[in-house]
């Protein structure tokens, strides 16, 4: 009996020792300390992605989608030969175009892709696939791209916006103000997103604001108004900011020749030019000068001046001479033999372009009557315009 009890106790002891050794030396998995580096890495990747999304990807996508939408709307106004009624209509159609690439087409055909709408209106367009403004470039497509890429390559489930949201829920606002200046536009959007990375999740709603240049977009004021009487012939002018820091006779010639845009508080802003609402803009008014050599203007009668050759004056009705009959030819520019024969300024423009007073040599820079009444002869003009003698189409050769 004593022997069987000893055996029993030794057996139990053996089992206990084996169990202790087993528990002590078998490597355990699922230890939190072992998991910490990979968890930290996952969270870092997800955090970097969220930051990149908010600060870089969305603003960049907003900028390109907005630029392309504005470009497309300029083309739409051109083929439709009509500006948008007012700012509200512009905002609505811009939001649709920028967000989805589709608009309520002015031809009454309902909601269409912008390219299809343009092609349906334009008799010269056979296939909408030959033009691209918003196809594949709209904001929602960009968001869908980043959602897919994040899911496939970073294993992050991303949802941008809300599946129930309409375009209006994104609060898209296109604007120009003192922050953008005259040569840029701004766009605001409300962005709601959720990013889930398994162990972590981000939910946020932020306001994204982006300012962009509209350089290279056709001015709808030219596109639409030149197709109306009395010109009745399409002429387009792409927006380019003038690189001129001060005004004088030669820089005025350069501005006419280049048809670039400069700031003028009495002019309409670039966004206002998409609408029939022709109003001055203190912060963002612009103007370009009418180039009679490039544009198909009606015949000009010498001595008869009936418009100021500033675009918003020429195409609008806000700019009568401050006194009846007070329009002026420019010396050396509005000449019989000149490219810009018939060019005229009102008194206000003479002043803003520094042409209302005699120059440093005491020469008068404006006149009325016939071209022969120019106070400066060819020799004097050649001397006054020497600085631009190397420009293409310069009025006088270099001496």
């Amino acid at each position, binding site marked *: 009996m004593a022997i069987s009890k000893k055996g029993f106790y030794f057996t139990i002891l053996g089992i206990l020792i084996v169990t202790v050794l087993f528990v002590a030396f078998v490597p355990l998995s699922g230890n939190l300390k072992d998991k910490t580096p990979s968890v930290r890495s996952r969270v870092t990747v997800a955090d970097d992605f969220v930051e990149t999304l908010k600060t870089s990807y969305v603003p*960049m996508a907003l900028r390109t989608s907005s630029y392309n939408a504005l470009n497309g709307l300029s083309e739409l106004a051109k083929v439709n030969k009509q500006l948008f009624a007012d700012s509200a209509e512009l905002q609505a159609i811009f939001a649709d175009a920028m967000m989805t690439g589709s608009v309520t087409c002015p031809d009454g055909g309902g909601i269409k892709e912008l390219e299809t709408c343009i092609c349906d209106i334009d008799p010269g367009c056979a296939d909408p696939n030959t033009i691209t403004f918003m196809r594949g470039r709209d904001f929602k497509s960009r968001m869908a791209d980043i959602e897919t890429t994040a899911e496939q390559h970073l294993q992050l489930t991303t949802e941008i916006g809300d599946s129930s949201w309409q375009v209006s829920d994104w609060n898209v606002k296109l604007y120009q103000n003192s922050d953008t200046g005259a040569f840029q536009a701004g766009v605001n959007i409300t962005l709601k997103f959720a990013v889930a990375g398994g162990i972590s999740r981000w939910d946020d709603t932020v306001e994204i604001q982006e300012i962009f240049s509209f350089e290279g977009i056709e001015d709808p004021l030219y596109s639409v108004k030149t197709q109306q009487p009395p010109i009745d012939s399409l002429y387009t002018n792409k927006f380019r900011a003038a690189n001129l820091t001060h005004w004088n006779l030669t820089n005025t010639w350069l501005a006419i020749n280049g048809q670039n845009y400069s700031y003028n508080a009495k002019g309409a802003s670039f966004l206002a030019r998409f609408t029939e609402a022709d109003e001055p803009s203190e912060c963002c008014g612009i103007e370009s000068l009418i180039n009679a050599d490039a544009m198909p203007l009606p015949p000009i009668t010498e001595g008869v001046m009936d418009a100021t050759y500033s675009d918003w004056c020429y195409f609008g009705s806000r700019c009568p001479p401050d006194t009846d009959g007070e329009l002026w030819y420019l010396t050396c520019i509005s000449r019989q033999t000149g490219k810009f024969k018939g060019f005229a300024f009102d008194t206000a423009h003479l002043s803003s372009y520094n042409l209302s007073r005699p120059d440093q040599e005491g020469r008068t820079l404006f006149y009325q009557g016939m071209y022969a009444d120019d106070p400066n002869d060819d020799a004097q003009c050649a001397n006054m315009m020497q600085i631009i003698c190397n420009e293409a189409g310069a009025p006088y050769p270099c001496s």
Partner: protein
Amino acid sequence: MAKRGQYFTIDAFVAMLVVATGLVLVLALNTYQPSTAQPEVLSQEFVNTLAQVKIKEMNNPFVAQQLKGGNITNPDNTLLQQVYEYYSYFDSFLTGCSPSNPCHGFDPVTYTNMSAELLASVAKDLVPAQYSYEILVDGVPLNSRGTGQQEAKVLISSKRIIFGIVNKSVEFWGPIVVEVRIWQ
């Protein structure tokens, strides 16, 4: 006899337990988990550097030459953005052209490997010599150093999403995935 049988049966189970425990201990001792801390940090920092450093911030002879030659039009591009622009607007654009008939005015011998050359000029100094690496852009390996990727005991991969704009505000490219693999 019955009691003896019980004891012998219990002993057999105990013996099996001891043998099994011994085997587990022997096998567990042979298990080796290599350290991944340094390659992991290196991989992350490498891809972050490529994704954040801008062309204008670089002091590199190849980059300076490209800036001077006008092949880099936007010095605010990051390295990876510039690599992708080279890849899509030079390398693939000129595929199929011959040295005797340069395409679009660009000599294909000079211009069909721009993305790889840019990576080669900057990446080699960012990774310590004892590590090998490979850089893939949109799934295409553009630059690498070292061999033995398949046999490596530790291979760390880091990914970044890149995107950009060309032609001012008109053309948006991306999102593209860049992957960096580091091994030793």
